[in-house]
Every structure is written in C-alpha cells, then in structure tokens.
C-alpha cells in the first residue's frame, strides 16, 4: 500500500468500516510510515473533537405533543371517513340470511317492512356519505401524496417493465383482482411499470406511464357497488387528476401533465381495453 492509497482509506479505517484484509494492510502501512501515522493521528483527534463539539439539536419541549396530536387528528379523520363504507358489506352479507328466516315465517310482514326501512335508511346514509365532496377531496390528497412519493423516494415501480405481459401477471399475483394493463408506447405514453399501493383502505394497482419527461400514475381498483359516476377532472395542488369508472374498475390518473394530455391518455387507454 502506498501513501496515497492509505490517505484515501483513512476515513474508512477511522470508522472501522474497512474489510479485515484492507484494515491489516493499512495498519501495516501506518506502522512503517511515520508521516502517514502522524497524519492519521491528527485527523483522528481533530475529527473526534469536531464531532464532540457539533451541537445536537434535541427536540424542543412541545414537539412530541405536537406530533402525537397530529397523529390523533389523522386517526379521527380516517375513522369518520371510513367506518361507513367498511360496514356496508357486512350488512348486505347479513341481509339474505335474515330474509330467508323472515320468508320462512310469512306472517311477519311487519318485521320485514321494518327490515327494509332499516336497510333503506342505512343505504341512504352510506350513499350520501360516499358522495360527500370532502371524501373525494381527501382521496385526491391521498392520490397526490402517493404520486409524489412514487417520484420522490425512487420507488416508481415495483416491477419496472414496459412489457404489459410482465407487469400484468405480477400485479395479478399480488392483488385479489386483475387490473387491465395496456402498453401505449405507440401512442406516446410508454408503460414504465407497475407498483402496489394502498389507498382508501384497500390495496390498489398503480400503473406508471410516461409522457415525454412526465410521469402518470394510474391507480386502479375494483368498483364497489354504485358505479354510475361520470368522468371528473380536477386540478389539485398543481397536479392534474382525472377520474373515471368502467363496469369493473375505478381509475384515477394523477400527473403534472396538462388536462388535454390526460384526457387523451384516458381515451387511448379505454380504446386499447375495448379492442382487446
């Protein structure tokens, strides 16, 4: 080992991060070379002193409470928004069972009527809750957060592939539904890959497409119950979003491309699905 190599490895040696063989080689050099030995000692004590003198900014009083109360707010927000839709399938699962019991005893019409009214009240409650604009707003925020995270954390795709026949089986295997995957390379929206995400309390498929330098995240999950929703386009926090529904799936496209491009993307996507 020469002096130059030794100086380059000094920091790793200081931090005990060298592999044993390099470590020994460096120690051998330091024993033989007083200049390097001297340089190492100086470096070591200086680094130690500077390290000790660097102020450590402990969390100020109050920050812990602030973090905890924001977590509680988040929980409260989640439970007002999510309890109703979650409870719904439970009720409809139960209903056929109670109906057969009721039909078996045909004289109990009063009870049946009460059950129907009860069901209707609950259904109306759920529907109106599901369509609350704040609920959509909240979902929009979640979608954007997911889009931004995917670009930020270097985690755009779990399965990076422009081949729909690679992406689709991967997603099918991970989810309890089979999202449609099409490649739109020829139309100027190449497929980049697929990713799993978790939104609004269920796992969703995120398909990633590219438009020039921009990315489009297309979130897909199965339609639950009422599917009669028109295509909605919205801009939120500077991101463009487009929502549509087909008989099987909910789609949310999120990107920083303009609205026209996103509309075009939707049309091409639907055309491709229809032509399969």
């Amino acid at each position, binding site marked *: 080992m020469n002096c130059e190599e030794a100086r380059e*490895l000094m920091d790793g040696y200081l931090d005990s991060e060298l592999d044993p063989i390099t470590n020994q080689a460096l120690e051998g050099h330091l024993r033989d070379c007083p200049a390097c030995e001297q340089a190492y000692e100086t470096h070591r004590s200086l680094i130690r002193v*500077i390290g000790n003198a660097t102020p450590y900014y*402990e969390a100020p009083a109050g920050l812990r409470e602030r*973090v905890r109360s924001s977590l509680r707010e*988040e929980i409260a927000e989640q439970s007002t928004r999510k309890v109703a839709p979650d409870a719904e399938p439970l009720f409809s699962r139960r209903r056929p069972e109670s109906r057969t019991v009721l039909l078996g005893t045909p004289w109990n019409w009063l009870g049946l009527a009460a059950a129907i009214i009860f069901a209707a009240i609950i259904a109306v409650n759920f529907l109106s809750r599901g369509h609350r604009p704040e609920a959509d707003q909240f979902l929009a925020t979640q979608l954007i957060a997911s889009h931004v995270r995917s670009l930020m954390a270097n985690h755009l795709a779990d399965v990076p592939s422009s081949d729909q026949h690679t992406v689709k089986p991967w997603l099918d295997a991970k989810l309890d539904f089979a999202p449609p995957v099409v490649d739109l390379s020829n139309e100027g929206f190449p497929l980049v890959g697929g990713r799993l995400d978790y939104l609004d309390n269920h796992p969703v498929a995120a398909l990633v497409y590219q438009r020039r330098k921009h990315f489009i995240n297309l979130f897909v999950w199965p339609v639950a119950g009422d599917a009669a929703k028109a295509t909605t386009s919205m801009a939120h926090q500077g991101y463009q979003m487009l929502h549509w529904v087909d008989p099987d799936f909910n789609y949310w496209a999120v990107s920083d491309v303009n609205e026209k491009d996103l509309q075009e993307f939707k049309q091409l996507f639907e055309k491709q699905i229809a032509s399969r």
Partner: protein
Amino acid sequence: MALPLKAEHASQTEDFGSDRKIVKFVLVKKREEQDDSRQGDVASFEEALLPHLDAAHNLARWLLRNEQDAQDVVQEAYLRAFRSFRGFHGTNGRAWLLTIVRNTSYTLLKKNRAADLTTTFDEEIHAPTDESVNPATILEHSEDAELVRQAMDELPADFREILVLRHQECLSYKEIADIAQIPPGTVMSRLARARARLKEYVTARISKEK
C-alpha cells in the same frame, strides 16, 4: 287458541327485535374494533418511532438550518411514516424514520430554497487551508461549539447530512447509504470530503479570528 298464537307471535317479534339489535350490535362492534385497531396502530407506531424524535429533529434542524421549518418537517415526516407504517416490516425504525425526515426536508429545500442545495464555495472567505495554523491550535478551537456550528452550517446540505448521520447518530456506512440514497461505496469518499471541508472551514475561521 288465541292465546298461544299471541304468545308465539310475541316471541317471534321479540326474536326479530333482537335480530335487528344483532345487526346494529355487529355494526357498532365492527366500528369499535376498527377504532381499537387504529388505537393499537398508533400505540405501536408511537412506541416504535417516538423514541427517535430527537434524531429526527436534529437531522431536520441541520438540513434546514431553521427551527420552525425543522419542526414542521418532523411533524409531516411522522404523519407520512404513520401512513405507510403497515408497509414497514424492517427492524431499523430509526433509519427508516430518518430516511423519511431526509426526503421531507429535501422536498421543502427544493421548493423554497433551491440555492441551498447547490454547493456554494466562496474562495474569498475560504482561503485554502492556512498551513501556519498548527494542529494544536485547531484542536483547541475545535472545542468551541459555536465556531464548529458556523462552519457546519456553511457546508452544502449533503455534507451536513452525512456528518450528522455518522458523528451524531453513529450510523454504519450501510445505513447511511440507505438514508442518503447513495451507493455504499460512495459513503466513505463523501464522508472524507465532508470532513476535509469542515476542517478547512474551521481552520479558515480560526485564522480570521487571529
């Protein structure tokens, strides 16, 4: 004859009544279970990650060089961490949290102060290391926390980050590579450059004071 029928009817009605109650009860129970599981989520989340509040704050404070921003970023990072906590199955909660704090800090830095992210090195202020300042003098002054703090604050963000992670959090090169999202092989050389630069800045300040 009328009496038994009435009695039967009454019991059926009662049954139905209780059936309806069961439905209600199940709904309420489900809601309670969900609330419980969320409370449980928060409890285990807090237990795993609140102990690292100081580390989170320290990193954010060094990266942003501003107390208010640091607190905002810490709060935001904890929220983000909580939202993806179910997806976290690792054992190193501190490194995971610091990664989120780091990313959240950079988002803010990019948005507000693009200038902070570019390395600015003013040759006028930072004259090349003055060889006349001997190591003993440097050592003596290096114990001056305020001087070291000023020198640290002048370093570019990626140098501040790596020095905090290594010297204050004592993380391994592997952990640092994960948090700073750089190849493991880059950690040693970046750390060496950061230390050399810090030494340079400290020396420059000492010779200016003399």
